């Protein structure tokens, strides 16, 4: 009996209390950033205003003036959207071929694709700078889109492949019997059937593009600079601008964190390449 009552006390009180504390602890830095974004720069560094202060929207209203936020945000949206679209356009046919017409080499090709993801970016830093500059593509949207697309392509192919594999082959083959062309099969049978999987793959790819902080910082200066570059350039070591820095940071991560809440499951599949189910 002793053990049973102990277990139930634990389940009833201790577990929820502990779990909630851990959750709040992990969320606290984000909460703190959002809270600080409603303080004036002066209030943000005063101990007496830690939690109680007069909230203000001025940091958000002055974001354009202080940081030119919308230009960077626009670049982030453009590069992430087009990189995701490009990756899907290349990956859907590829994953289709691998899932429904596998050859003996398919497994090796998939593994090889993954291995490209493991190449340390820094190792090819100078060649990339050299190539983009000599092709006149440095600091252009086009180059950022291509790079974002290529670094995410392996994950996109993998995720789509694991989704497509779940679709019974008979459905696709029935289409072949009816004399549908390969393109028709992809467009009219595969895409409608795997719509959910394709959408969550796109969402995850978009998040990775948005958060990318190596190439977007090293291959841009102003014209194609994304939000990563904006934040990286405003680290404000003197802490004089905590209020406005919090506001611009919150605006940079807010939408993505909310999007992320909707694709927790896909994240597991996407990041472990289907090895954890």
């Amino acid at each position, binding site marked *: 009996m002793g053990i049973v009552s102990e*277990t139930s006390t634990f*389940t009833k009180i201790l577990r929820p209390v*502990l*779990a*909630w504390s*851990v959750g*709040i602890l*992990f*969320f606290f*830095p*984000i909460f*703190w*950033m959002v809270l600080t974004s409603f303080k004036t720069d002066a209030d943000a*560094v005063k101990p007496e205003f*830690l939690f109680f202060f007069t909230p203000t929207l001025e940091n958000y209203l002055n974001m354009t003036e202080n940081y030119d936020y919308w230009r960077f945000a626009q670049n982030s949206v453009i590069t992430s959207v087009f990189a995701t679209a490009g990756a899907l356009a*290349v990956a859907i*046919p*590829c994953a289709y071929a691998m899932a429904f*017409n596998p050859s003996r080499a398919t*497994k090796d090709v998939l*593994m090889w694709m993954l291995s*490209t993801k*493991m*190449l*340390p970016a*820094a*190792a*090819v*830093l*100078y*060649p*990339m*700078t050299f*190539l983009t500059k000599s092709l006149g593509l440095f600091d252009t949207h086009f180059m950022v889109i291509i790079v974002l697309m290529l670094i995410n*392509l392996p994950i996109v192919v993998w995720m789509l492949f694991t989704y497509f594999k779940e679709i019974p082959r008979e459905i696709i083959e029935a289409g072949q019997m009816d004399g549908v062309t*390969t393109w028709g099969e992809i467009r009219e049978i595969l895409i409608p059937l795997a719509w959910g999987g394709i959408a969550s793959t796109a969402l995850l790819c978009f*998040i990775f593009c948005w958060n990318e*902080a*190596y190439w977007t*910082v090293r291959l841009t200066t102003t014209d194609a600079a994304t939000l*990563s570059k904006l*934040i990286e350039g*405003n*680290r404000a*070591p003197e*802490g004089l601008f905590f209020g406005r*820095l919090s506001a611009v*940071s919150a605006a940079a991560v807010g939408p*993505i*964190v909310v*999007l*992320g*809440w909707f694709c*927790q499951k896909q*994240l*597991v599949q996407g*990041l*472990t390449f*289907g090895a*954890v189910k």
Partner: protein
Amino acid sequence: MSDRRLPRLLQTPAVVLLLIWMIVPLSMTLFFSFIRYVLNSLRRPEWTEPSLSNWRGFGNYNYVLNNNDFLLAVQNSLLIVCSIVLLTVILGVLIAVLINKAFPGRSIVRVLLISPFFVMPAVNAVLWINMILDPVLGLQGLAVEGLNGTLQNLRAAPGIGWFFSLWPELQPISFRATQTSAYAVIIMVTWQWTPFAVLIFMTSLQSEDQQQKEAAVLDGAGVWSQFRFLTLPHLSRPIAIVVMIQAIFHLSLYAEIEIVSRGNGNKNLPYLIGEFANNNIGAASATGIFAVILANIIAIFLLRMIGKTLME
């Protein structure tokens, strides 16, 4: 057979693109690592052009291996990667086991927990180093100041004041200093990646054999031995995968290190490559090749593990 040729051809664009992406820059790095190649040189202007006549053999590799910064960078890379991996796995297992069972508000706790993972690295670093860890203006500084103020008041209190005057004043820690900046990076990345470990372990725990557990309880197995002999073995594969994926990601940490200390006493390999690349491309490329070798050693194990489940 002929009707299968087109479908298979559909893989080509993806394969060709990735092939170019992998081979072209990497072979350039390999080539540059064997020649003398600098961006600016008044004395030897011929070295500013990448050409075969500047062949240096393994000279760049020698130079890098004998460079003090290189050893420090490797040490630092390993310190940062190992600490983060260890912390996230331990915290991840504990938290996953904690929230694996139902309790009021579980889905909200899950959302709170996973959020840090979606914060972009640049914001993560700026947020932690300025607003939280700063010894004067950050939360740490403000908290220390507040606690010291309370301590002052208590010391002045009659009767019990003598007890508090035995306590030392708190000193805030500066995380921008040479020795401590690596810890700042470890703290912020652990915060960001523990949610990832939790998510993976939780997914895996969902598939744990409940009947086996119930049988163990009937046999009188305690909570600890259930964890030790059932849960932990069940998690061994996900743990291995989390370790390797993180190792690969964190070996190329860059934004956090740049923002925390600008590499002051706290360079890792990618940072050192960036520094070399400001002028000495030969050395940067040789360091890059070392980084590729290091990542490959880990990647081989990871690919083997993933390959096993691939075609089931």
